[in-house]
């Protein structure tokens, strides 16, 4: 009886029900976009479609409704969120450089939560004119501009997140020079004699790490730019190359031959110790940090001779391959504000630039040239 009474009370109680929604299968946001200007639509739609973050042809309700009104000098944008919780409106001046890209950036930031996507650029090496020179292009693989005309071979390209400085090694006549391109000025940066390559500057700009020869062995050297003094950063009997500062400047990723083959290590500048990161392959090079320092991307040689991009997740301490089965995939470079990676691959014959995400689920080919493109660096748009 008591049970029945309890049940009756239970039935008439005001208790809440609960539903748990499982992790979704990833589908693009459904967006309706309209404008009073067909020209504006024809410019902005290809950009938004390029991202694959959105679906424009669908049935049912949209997640976002975007209205762009162009007037004589301005374009005003209204973004209606179906949740009713957020409504963005902003105005951009027409006919200023990259205004369509800036407008698209704002739309992507408000709806997909990714910053500066369309104003980001790539710096890369191309052998388009038989030398290996430095070029830049936009995210769509267009608006290509030449940055150097040194008539030699450029390698070891590094850059600050917004490419405020770009460093590279220039090889000519058996000599190597490290150059720094800053505010459109090109200068020789490390003047010490002997072989040197792969310069990376600390975020505060006080230190530089690079590879130099010590007793005939390549070593990671640290240069205090205030005093001008250089010293060996990491003491080990093995050859070490490709040092890169983490975004917070507290760690340095590098390649060491301590295990007998090149492997990725991370040196903690505070604790003064190194940790091996790459184990899945026996030959790994080209470390590159994600913008928040949570991931490290690098290239590894597979037993079948292919090169693939691997990602190390510092939080979960896991290593995973994001490219595969397609010849060589090299030179990974993170998008500074998100989970995208640019890399070079010869999967279609010559080396071209591709972008993917850290899960390897998204792939876009950006260059389609008869030349080879190497050593890509992804630079964030200026905020």
């Amino acid at each position, binding site marked *: *009886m008591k049970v*029945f*009474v309890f*049940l*009756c009370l*239970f*039935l*008439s109680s005001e*208790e*809440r*029900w*609960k*539903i*748990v*929604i*499982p*992790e*979704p299968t*990833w*589908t*693009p*946001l*459904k967006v309706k976009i309209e404008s009073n200007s067909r020209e504006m639509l024809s410019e902005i739609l290809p950009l938004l479609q390029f*991202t694959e*973050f959105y679906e424009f042809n669908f049935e*049912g*309700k949209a*997640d976002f409704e975007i209205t762009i009104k162009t007037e004589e000098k301005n374009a005003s944008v209204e973004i209606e*969120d*179906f*949740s*009713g*919780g*957020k409504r963005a409106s902003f105005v951009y001046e027409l006919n200023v450089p990259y205004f369509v890209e800036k407008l698209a950036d704002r739309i992507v930031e408000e*709806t*997909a*939560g*990714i910053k500066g996507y369309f104003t980001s650029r790539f710096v890369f090496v191309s052998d388009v004119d038989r030398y290996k020179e430095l070029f830049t292009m936009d995210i769509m693989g267009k608006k290509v501009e030449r940055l150097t005309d040194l008539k030699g071979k450029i390698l070891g390209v590094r850059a600050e997140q917004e490419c405020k400085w770009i460093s590279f090694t220039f090889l000519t006549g058996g000599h190597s020079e490290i150059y720094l391109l800053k505010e459109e000025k090109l200068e020789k940066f490390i003047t010490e004699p002997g072989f040197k390559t792969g310069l990376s500057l600390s975020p505060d700009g006080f230190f530089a790490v690079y590879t130099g020869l010590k007793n005939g062995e390549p070593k990671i050297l640290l240069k205090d730019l205030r005093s001008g003094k250089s010293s060996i950063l990491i003491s080990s009997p093995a050859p070490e190359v490709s040092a890169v500062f983490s975004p917070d400047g507290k760690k340095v990723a590098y390649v060491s031959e301590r295990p007998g083959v090149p492997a990725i290590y991370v040196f903690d500048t505070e604790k003064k110790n190194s940790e091996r990161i790459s184990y899945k392959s026996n030959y790994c090079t080209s470390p590159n940090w994600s913008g928040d320092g*949570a991931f490290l991307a690098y290239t590894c040689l597979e037993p079948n001779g292919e090169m693939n991009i691997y990602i190390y997740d510092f939080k979960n301490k896991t290593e995973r391959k994001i490219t595969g089965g397609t010849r060589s995939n090299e030179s990974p470079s993170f998008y500074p504000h*998100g*989970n995208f990676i640019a890399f070079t691959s010869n999967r279609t014959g010559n080396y071209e630039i591709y972008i993917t*995400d*850290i*899960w390897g689920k998204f792939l876009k080919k950006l260059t389609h040239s008869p030349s080879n493109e190497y050593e890509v660096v992804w630079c964030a748009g200026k905020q």
Partner: protein
Amino acid sequence: MTLHIYTISIILSLFFHLFIFKTLKIFPEHKPDGRGYSFYGERVITASLFRVLPPSGSGGKKGFSGEVLKGIKGINKIPAKSEEGTISFEEAISELLGEGSEEGIPYSFSYFEEIKRKIMKEWNLPEGMKEQLKSLKCTILMKMRRDGEVLELKILRSSGNELYDLSAIRAIKKAAPFSPFPMVIPKEEIEIEVEF
């Protein structure tokens, strides 16, 4: 004397329960499939006992978790006879879990499963959430009217990420309106915590 008091108490208690059951409209107006009231009543009580549904997962029937199946106590006490003949234990479970609810009266399990399916279908996450997805969780309180209309949505527990919270609200708003309450929910309005 004591025996009389007990007898009277039992009779009064029976009347009381009948009154409550009638008031709450737990008994159906008709036999939907020719099966006994006791079976139907058992189903109602069982369904109501699981107001707070556990998350769906593998091991359950039609997307329900094993916990639900384990939780249905007294299921083997369900009369196994119908006008058409014997129903199997599996059929009884299917009946309880709402299989075939399109043809018959929707039961509470299938009702909430339908809400869940509709919300899942409409939940599109911004690209920038991908990496953080596993670490984000938010709960939305949804107030619903008997006819399936959503009256109010409130963020009960925020994920701390505005885009994520709004994507959850968007999913519910896009999925609404839902089907009217089944008769096993004898309320004019209910509140559901939807955890994303």
